[in-house]
């Protein structure tokens, strides 16, 4: 599996109202990699994911999946949304089976894989429960199981834990990392949370807004044998602080400039 995004730009709207949201995005994902895209809101990170998923078309540039251009959504690129993506009229098991049934897999296969992936996410006991009977964290695990069961070549995770409480979020991060480690899946994670990205991804792209672009890419080679310890480790915190500074600088650019110009005018008036 090889996914490549080359020189992709995207603008929404037409004519004078058109707004450039992404400019010259380049990134690659290879089989088995865990890549993260981090940025504040408005940096266009979700748009990058939607373009890769084929839910939007780039204004220019190309997206290739195994040397074939991406023209629309397909089961080779599974997606997990932030929330509200389970089918409320289906049980957890039927939700997991949903994609496999769309693809026309045979009944026995569907049954076996449903049981297997429910077990993978630790919800074998909740198979017959409906989404509204599940907690937020459990719902997201069902969504992950459903995406996995549809057998994608790459998993696109759009802020999958963004709507969860902090504590559940941490355990879900550990769950997802272990899942990636065990299953050897390929994943692209979109998040605004630097810690989350650094904990799991080997490669982190930092995105800046206005228009959305990748401003920095770091390889995060860390010892991930104990994630909760890693959160507190010095090298981890330093890397995180460094990147957070980068993000802050990007976000506050207009505010900082305004503050500076204000300082210079007050400075000149006091000296004069």
């Amino acid at each position, binding site marked *: 599996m090889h996914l490549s995004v080359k020189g992709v730009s995207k603008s929404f709207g037409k004519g004078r109202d058109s707004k450039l949201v992404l400019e010259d995005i380049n990134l690659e994902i290879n089989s088995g990699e865990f890549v993260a895209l981090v940025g504040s809101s408005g940096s266009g990170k979700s748009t990058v994911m939607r373009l890769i998923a084929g*839910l939007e078309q780039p204004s220019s540039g190309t997206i290739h999946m195994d040397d074939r251009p991406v023209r629309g959504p397909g089961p080779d690129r599974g997606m997990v949304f932030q929330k509200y993506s389970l*089918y409320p009229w289906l049980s957890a098991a039927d939700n997991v089976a949903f*994609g496999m049934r769309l693809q026309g897999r045979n009944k026995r296969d569907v049954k076996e894989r449903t049981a297997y992936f429910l077990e993978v996410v630790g919800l074998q006991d909740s198979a017959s429960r409906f989404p509204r009977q599940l907690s937020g964290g459990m719902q997201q695990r069902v969504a992950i199981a*459903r995406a996995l069961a549809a057998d994608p070549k790459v998993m696109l995770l759009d802020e999958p834990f963004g709507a969860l409480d902090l504590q559940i979020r941490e355990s879900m991060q550990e769950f997802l990392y272990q899942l990636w480690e065990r299953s050897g899946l390929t994943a692209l994670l979109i998040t605004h949370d630097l810690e989350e990205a650094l904990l799991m991804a080997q490669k982190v792209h930092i995105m800046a807004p206005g228009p959305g672009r990748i401003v920095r890419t770091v390889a995060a080679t860390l010892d991930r044998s104990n994630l909760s310890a890693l959160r507190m480790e010095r090298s981890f915190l330093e890397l995180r602080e460094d990147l957070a500074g980068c993000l802050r600088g990007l976000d506050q650019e207009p505010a900082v400039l305004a503050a500076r110009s204000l300082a210079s005018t007050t400075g000149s008036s006091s000296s004069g």
Partner: protein
Amino acid sequence: MSLRRQLDQPWLLGLVGIFSLLLLWQLVAASRVVDPLFLPSPAEVLAAGAEQAQEGILVNDALASIGRVLGGYALSILVSLPLGIAMGSNRLVCQLLEPLLGLIRYMPAPAFIPLLIIYFGLGELPKVLLIFIGTLFFNTLMIMDAVKFVPRELLESALTMGGRGLQIITKVVAPFIAPQVLDAYRINMAAAWNLVIVAELVAANEGLGKRISLAQRFLRTDEIFVGLIVIGLIGLLIDLGFRLLMRRTCRWAI
């Protein structure tokens, strides 16, 4: 148990309301303040109803009216479902048809009666078509709205798992809108029931509306009351039927 909690039963207060009205009716009728010719007592109305039932008129009339409603409304259901889904899921179809439907919707259905009589005579067809015309546009527009509000995530999840066109409609859109569609059908059923009576008032040989208009001619207010109450009761039963169907088929949405 406190009084408030005792009162908080789903049926209790409703029954209290109905019986209060009956009691008020009985008191006013018994006091003879109003001429009995205009306001028969509940007992007299019951007697008139029993008489009609015994003669077999009541069942005949009710069946005639129910048949027309079911015919016209079934047609409306069959056409509005695909039409509403097409308009809700395809922007071009929507742009083509929404102004048209919005316009026709504001034409009062009873105003079509003269035209329908000219075209189709005095038989069953114009009555069935009146109910069809009078409910189709409301049903269609309500279904269209339900389709437009299917969450994007549900559609896109299916797309990223390999779902295509018709599959998206049958596996995602249809189950999601089912509760709203049933509710729309339930609400607009009241309009169908109104229209059948209007149609029968104008021209019919039998039917609950026809019976009411005959009763008016002979100043039989007790029979008018019978007709009104029976119409109300049948309507209530249909409403409850839809609610039951909803509870059976759309448990997830309740």
